[in-house]
């Protein structure tokens, strides 16, 4: 393989890898505070992209993106308050079915609002044919936007969880809900907040990826499956490992194009997911004894 082509594939892989990692972190944030997997996570990414595209006709691009993220966060909070907050210790099966139902509803609403057409935000800098040289290969500057925005999100999130009071309260809830409640933290508010947070990062990822990958109403499910694969690969609940796992999956997928037909690209992620579920359900970086404490 020519070195330029190698770099080209690598950059594409890293770009997608970061997006998967953001979706996976969205899964992790909600899983940590509630113990449930939100099957509607991919829909937040779609909503972010779609809202930004619609708003972009009215206001400048940065404002449109900020508004789209804010609206998606609001939707995330509303969904949690309406459908999840008041349930009294629901079973896992019940939560799976409810969040699947939510993802269908969001997708159908999007279909009726925006139709089936494929849309995209304009490129943040330059246009479709602008390229810059990276190690001898020509790549779109949008790739740098994606990588930059996603790494910034990951960094900010880890600082947020470590140093802010709210972040520490959320971590306390994840570690021991009862003890957190005794310390005066309202765990229900933390759950609502975790939905807002993961809706927000999903929406932002949806905006920065839109110029390259386009946005349509049905992208959510595919992203959710890949994000889940990455979350499992890194060990459920472990956000830093999710970044490493995301990059791994993204790069494997990108290079698979040279040996497999494009139509089977999705099958790779799912095959990896199935293998990892059978062999190491606690993830590549997780520890088995720690996983034993979680409810699968």
């Amino acid at each position, binding site marked *: 393989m020519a070195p330029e082509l190698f770099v080209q594939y690598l950059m594409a892989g890293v770009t997608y890898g970061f997006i998967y990692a953001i979706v996976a972190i969205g899964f992790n944030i909600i899983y940590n505070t509630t113990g*449930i*997997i939100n099957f509607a996570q991919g829909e937040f990414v779609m909503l972010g992209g779609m809202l930004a595209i619609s708003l972009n006709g009215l206001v400048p691009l940065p404002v449109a993106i900020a508004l789209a993220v804010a609206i998606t966060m609001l939707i995330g909070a509303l969904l949690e308050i309406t*459908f999840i907050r*008041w*349930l*009294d210790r*629901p*079973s*896992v*099966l*019940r939560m*799976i*079915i*409810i969040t*699947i*139902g*939510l*993802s*269908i*509803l969001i*997708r*159908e*609403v999007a279909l*009726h609002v925006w139709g089936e057409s494929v849309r995209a935000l304009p490129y943040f800098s330059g246009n479709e044919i602008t390229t810059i040289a990276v190690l001898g290969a020509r790549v779109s500057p949008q790739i740098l936007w994606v990588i930059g925005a996603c790494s910034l999100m990951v960094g900010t999130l880890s600082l947020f969880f470590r140093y802010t009071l709210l972040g520490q309260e959320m971590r306390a809830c994840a570690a021991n809900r009862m003890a957190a409640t005794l310390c005066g933290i309202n765990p229900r508010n933390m759950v609502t907040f975790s939905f807002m947070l993961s809706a927000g990062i999903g929406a932002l990822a949806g905006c920065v990826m839109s110029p390259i990958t386009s946005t349509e109403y049905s992208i959510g*499910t595919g992203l959710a*499956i890949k994000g*889940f694969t990455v979350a*499992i690969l890194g060990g459920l609940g472990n956000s830093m490992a999710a970044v490493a796992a995301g990059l791994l999956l993204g790069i494997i997928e990108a290079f698979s194009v040279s040996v497999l*037909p494009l*139509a*089977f690209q*999705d*099958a790779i992620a*799912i*095959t990896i*997911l*199935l293998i990892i*579920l*059978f062999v190491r*359900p606690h993830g590549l970086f997780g520890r088995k004894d720690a996983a034993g404490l979680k*409810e*699968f």
Partner: protein
Amino acid sequence: MARYLPLALLAIVVIVVQQIAQWSDATYYLTQLTMTAYYSLVIVGLCLLMGYAGQISLGHAGFFAIGGYLSAMLTTHDLMPYQGNALFKALGSLGLLVHQQDLFGASVLHVTPWAACIAAVLTAALIAFCLGIPVLKLKGHYLAMATLGFGIIIFRVALATPLFGEADGISEVPGFTLLPGLTVSGDFAARTSNYYIAWGMVLLTMLLLSQLIHSRIGRALRAIHGSEEAARAMGVDTARYKLQTFVLSAVLAAVAGVFLTHFNGGLGPSEAGIMKSVRYVAIVAIGGMANLWGALIMGVVLNFLSLRGFFGTYDDAVFGAILIVIMLFAPHGLLHRGILRELKNLFRKNGHGPA
């Protein structure tokens, strides 16, 4: 004896509905009722798996598609180029192949529907067996995602393989002659007999399943649903029972796929889609999970309305909304004795869900 009463009732309803349709000159309803019956096979199979064994599957459309696609492919793909091959000669001498004339008068060679049906169902059973061994060790989210992943792989394979017609699917699938004079096909003249074939299969399946859930296996399954650890401690071979149930429900889905494909004369990749699997799960949930008759009734009602186009472009949205509402307010389904009390509690507690 009480066990056979619902079966007898179902048989009577099936006959009465057919007679009414005949008299009122509305036999076109029988077409959708036949399709509904085949979908009901998938649903009662899934009900056994979800409600009784407590294992969710978001990939049942995959088994349906394996049955349908394999049968359709084997009965329409021309084997003429391989005629010299020893394997196909052997198949031919066993009477498993049939010579036909295509539209242009050229001679083509297909597998007979009976052989194709058996091959398709056995393949589905084998895949379910191989998939079930590792997958059924998982629980909750992991099981849901693994089965969802399986369903998506089948969908992708159907969509990307030229042999399976890619996005167009397979059409012009011939009829399936069960016995001389009894053919599963979309032929208008055979509409009534097809209606009886389909509902006969539903009756047979319900008989089989209602025997099963009242047997030792059924009690073992319910023990597994209650607590897998406790069941294992009592000496129930949980892994084996779960696997058997999984394979049985996959076989039912595959059989439904084979028959519906021959009845419709073809199928497309949407039959393998995720929404189909979710729809089956939704219907089982509405029926009340561990309630075969509830699942059957809701399956017939909702599938019939959906096939008649009653929900219009909101078809998928309706199923999504039903899922949420049922799981929020009536997690034990709509058709059971405690439903009124449950709903009353709901309002008394001012919006705090049933415990």
